[in-house]
């Protein structure tokens, strides 16, 4: 055993440390340097989910049911997979509306109904008290185990209440929670210090549990393999490692499914989870990491549950030791007292963490949704216009905390011994799961109405009481168990655990099935058959579409007249003078126009209401604001109108944005088109100047020769003949040039005439070669032919193709060397088409000039050889080939000659024929 003073002092010292952390957290928050603004701290604070139930109860359950302790952690893991979708939306909504609790969340969605808020609060209090009692039981039982003499059984419970350590634990915790939970009034102004302390506690309990796990596995056994092999040698223990271990082997499936679903829903809607996940969230982005860190935490803290349970069962074989306390008894019995004390601190962390957050959350709900609405009904409270009410509200919350803990203690004292930890926890889970239809439905379905929620919650909660709560009380012996066995008045079909004779489900799954079925059915059906009020409809829109409103201002669903002075007085009663001043200065920026004449506009009224909601809940805030302003009733069509205005405004701004964007695009396009036109214009000018330049050269020489002949009538005859030859040659060149310019213009404009027929490329080549033969012979040059000569027919204009070949051949001839000039023509005939190559052994064309040879009037190479050329031959040839869907290109290595090639496809499809598409197609005219 460990001496009582040591345990008590250690426990108190630990609580003091927590308080110091909380105090430091608040201090840093006040200075604007938050210590909890980290996704890791956020994830650790969510781990408040792991309570004493996890810490002690999991081992207890595992020692009876094997791996059936796991669904409680798999459910939240799966819920967290959807966390980025669901919880983020909850955070966004809660921030927009300054939601203070899960009750406020549901009530606010359904038209800020104070009845719904009250009902949810009542369900929470009834459902959660056993859960808090469970924590007290854990603290008390672990304390007794630690301090009991080793040779003596730990006493089950203290005999008289004033000797009961649990009572003092409860009171100490109440004091502790009051000290750092209710210092500010506004709960949406987060409890940074508390969150820091909770995150620290999560760390401690994880480390303590891992420590005892490692101790058991490696201290008492030789690793996991050893532990499991020894356990599996025992038939009873080996059974725990199989699935059927979970008692009711008949309905394994439904039970497993039910537990996973139950845990997942409870995880989302437990008041303390809502508090740490949604209300205490500093930054939405922290959720991104928390959604996987938190499941990882759960996995780690469950890693050693099964080994510890098996080890405990082997160690204390059948001597009646409480499996719930194996984590403590194993180190204690082996004499590791320091470890036992650390483990106890871990358990204390798990329990206090839960109690602190739960008590803060629930006391806020009691104050805002039960006490304040009642106070608002009394005249005296409403008329007491002067005076600050913040102190009163704080005191109500403090009383709420004490009340809740004493109630839990009472439950523990009266009924706590009857149940194992896990069963108590599951009963609470099932109560909280009733909020799922209203909350999830409210977030994703605009059709849910307040009446539907009241019907659903009422039906679900009643069935929960009847099928789960009452039987559990009966089992504790406080009421007769007859009605559980035989049904009320002996009506067997009303037996709470086999309602309507439904068997095949364990009690928890049975209750969950009936209560959720009734809940969902009533919620949906009544919602469908009732018309939502104006405020419900407007809140539904604001909740469901919260993501769509992103940066846009919220539409304000309020109309009427309000005096700034009244609002100010109201706000200062609940928020205090300083915050009120800040609020009105703040909003002055927006509402100058509205507030100037002492009149508040709708936005200011709504702002005041939202701020009040942060203090007293949305339903009470609604009532208070309504009492000081002169408001007109909002009808459904008003909601629609306001919404229309808002969405119209949004639409206008979007349309404006789109218009300016398309204008910008049009400008861009115009600029590009203008650039293109300019460059085309430049090209045309260049072309014109090139043409005139080319025309002037022969004209000049003709004129010069003609003038000479004119001025000199005595010119000898042979000289006259020579001049006339020049004139003829130059005029021929001139007319050729003019002909080519016209030709090119016609082809480019698509007005050329094409006489298509099936032509044989080889024949055409022969024809071209024949007509050039004389000129080649004059220069002692040869033409060689190679390649296939099979008759490959191509659909094309024969004359045009000859023109191309003549062009290539005469070009080549111009650049051939004077000695041993040689041109090779190669025809390659394939399935796709015909490729003709004309290779010469001239000087070749440099890389830079290759790019230019197909440009108009661009003659390359030295000046002497260019004579007689027009600079239009190659461009025209290329146009012709492209017209038939082919292409023309040049390859050359300077010094080794040039190789001009063109390729003509066999099937020149219409899309390849370019200009020909506009021509009358001769094929079509054929029969």
């Amino acid at each position, binding site marked *: 055993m460990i001496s009582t003073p040591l345990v008590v002092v250690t426990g108190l010292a630990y609580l003091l440390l927590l308080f110091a952390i909380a105090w430091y957290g608040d201090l840093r928050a006040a200075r604007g340097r938050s210590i909890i603004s980290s996704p890791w701290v956020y994830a650790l604070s969510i781990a408040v989910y792991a309570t004493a139930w996890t810490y002690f109860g999991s081992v207890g359950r595992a020692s009876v049911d*094997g*791996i059936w302790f*796991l669904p409680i952690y*798999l459910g939240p*893991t*799966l819920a*967290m*997979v*959807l966390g*980025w*979708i669901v919880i983020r939306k909850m955070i966004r909504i809660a921030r927009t509306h300054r939601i203070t609790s899960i009750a406020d969340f549901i009530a606010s969605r359904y038209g800020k109904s104070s009845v719904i808020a009250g009902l949810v609060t009542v369900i929470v209090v009834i459902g959660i008290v056993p859960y808090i009692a469970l924590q007290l039981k854990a603290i008390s039982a672990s304390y007794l185990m630690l301090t009991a003499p080793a040779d003596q059984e730990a006493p089950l419970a203290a005999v008289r209440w004033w000797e009961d350590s649990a009572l003092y634990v409860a009171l100490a915790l109440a004091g502790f929670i009051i000290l750092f939970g209710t210092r500010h009034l506004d709960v949406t102004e987060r409890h940074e210090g508390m969150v820091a302390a909770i995150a620290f506690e999560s760390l401690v309990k994880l480390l303590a549990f891992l420590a005892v796990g490692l101790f058991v596995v490696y201290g008492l056994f030789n690793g*996991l*393999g*050893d532990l*499991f*092999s020894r356990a*599996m040698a025992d038939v009873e223990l*080996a059974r725990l*490692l*199989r*699935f059927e271990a979970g008692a009711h082997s008949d309905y*394994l*499936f439904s039970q*497993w*499914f039910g537990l*996973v679903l139950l845990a997942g829903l409870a995880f989302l809607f437990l008041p303390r989870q809502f508090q740490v996940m949604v209300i205490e969230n500093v930054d939405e982005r922290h959720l*991104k*990491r928390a*959604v*996987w860190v938190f*499941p*990882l935490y759960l*996995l780690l803290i469950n*890693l050693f549950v*099964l080994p510890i349970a098996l080890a405990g069962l082997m160690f204390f074989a059948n001597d009646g030791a409480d499996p719930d306390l194996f984590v403590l008894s194993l180190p204690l019995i082996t004499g590791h007292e320091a470890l036992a004390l650390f483990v106890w601190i871990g358990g204390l962390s798990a329990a206090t963490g839960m109690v602190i957050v739960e008590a803060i959350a629930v006391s806020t709900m009691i104050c805002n949704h039960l006490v304040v609405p009642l106070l608002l009904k009394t005249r005296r409270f409403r008329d007491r216009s002067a005076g600050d009410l913040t102190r009163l509200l704080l005191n109500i919350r403090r009383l709420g905390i004490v009340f809740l803990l004493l109630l839990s203690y009472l439950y523990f004292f009266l009924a706590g011994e009857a149940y194992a930890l896990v069963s108590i926890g599951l009963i609470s889970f099932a109560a909280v799961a009733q909020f799922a239809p209203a909350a999830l439905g409210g977030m994703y379905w605009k059709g849910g109405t307040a009446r539907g929620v009241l019907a659903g919650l009422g039906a679900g909660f009643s069935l929960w009481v009847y099928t789960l709560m009452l039987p559990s009380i009966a089992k504790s012996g406080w009421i007769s168990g007859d009605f559980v066995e035989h049904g009320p008045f002996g009506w067997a079909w009303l037996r709470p655990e086999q309602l309507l004779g439904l068997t095949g489900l364990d009690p928890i799954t049975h209750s969950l099935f009936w209560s959720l079925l009734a809940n969902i059915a009533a919620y949906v059906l009544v919602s469908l058959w009732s018309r939502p009020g104006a405020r419900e409809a407007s809140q539904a829109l604001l909740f469901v579409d919260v993501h769509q409103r992103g940066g846009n201002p919220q539409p304000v669903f309020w109309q009427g007249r309000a005096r700034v002075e009244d609002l100010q007085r109201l706000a200062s009663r609940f928020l205090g003078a300083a915050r009120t001043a800040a609020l009105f200065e703040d909003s002055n920026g927006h509402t100058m126009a509205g507030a100037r004449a002492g009149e508040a506009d709708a936005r200011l009224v709504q702002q005041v209401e939202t701020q009040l909601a942060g203090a007293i809940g949305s339903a009470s805030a609604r009532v208070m604001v309504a009492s000081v302003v002169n408001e007109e009733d909002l009808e459904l069509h008003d909601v629609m109108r306001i919404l229309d205005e808002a969405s119209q405004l949004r639409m206008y701004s979007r349309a404006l944005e789109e218009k300016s964007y398309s204008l910008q695009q049009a400008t861009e396009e115009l600029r590009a088109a203008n650039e293109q036109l300019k460059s085309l214009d430049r090209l045309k000018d260049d072309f014109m100047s090139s043409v005139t330049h080319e025309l002037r050269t022969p004209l000049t020489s003709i004129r010069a020769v003609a003038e000479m002949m004119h001025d000199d009538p005595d010119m000898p005859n042979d000289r006259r003949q020579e001049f006339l030859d020049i004139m003829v040659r130059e005029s021929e060149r001139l007319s050729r040039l003019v002909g080519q310019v016209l030709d090119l213009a016609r082809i480019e404009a698509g007005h050329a005439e094409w006489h298509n027929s099936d032509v044989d490329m080889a024949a055409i080549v022969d024809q071209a070669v024949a007509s050039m033969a004389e000129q080649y012979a004059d220069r002692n040059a040869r033409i060689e032919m190679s390649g296939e000569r099979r008759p490959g027919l191509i659909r094309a204009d024969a004359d045009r193709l000859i023109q191309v070949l003549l062009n290539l051949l005469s070009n080549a001839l111009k650049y051939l060397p004077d000695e041993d000039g040689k041109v090779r023509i190669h025809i390659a005939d394939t399935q796709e088409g015909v490729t003709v190559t004309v290779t010469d052994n001239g000087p070749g064309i440099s890389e830079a000039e290759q790019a230019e040879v197909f440009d108009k009037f661009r003659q390359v190479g030295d000046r002497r050889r260019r004579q007689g050329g027009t600079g239009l031959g190659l461009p025209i040839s290329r146009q012709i080939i492209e017209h038939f869907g082919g292409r023309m290109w040049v390859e050359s290595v300077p010094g080794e000659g040039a190789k001009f090639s063109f390729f003509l496809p066999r099937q020149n499809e219409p899309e390849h024929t370019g200009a020909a598409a506009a021509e009358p197609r001769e094929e079509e005219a054929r029969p």
Partner: protein
Amino acid sequence: MKQALIQKLLALFCLGWLLLSFPLITLWDHPATVFGLPLLPAGVFAVWAVLIAVLAWLMERETG
């Protein structure tokens, strides 16, 4: 981008739910051992760990 992430999360949720409930979870229910560990707990913990790893990968990959 956002929509794609949401669809992946929904798919992962369905996959996790299937793997961690009937009847797939009974695939591990054999009196065998892997590395000296009983198959059922080892299998369930492994599926759980993989689920968390995939979730972490999905969330951390997304920036901003």
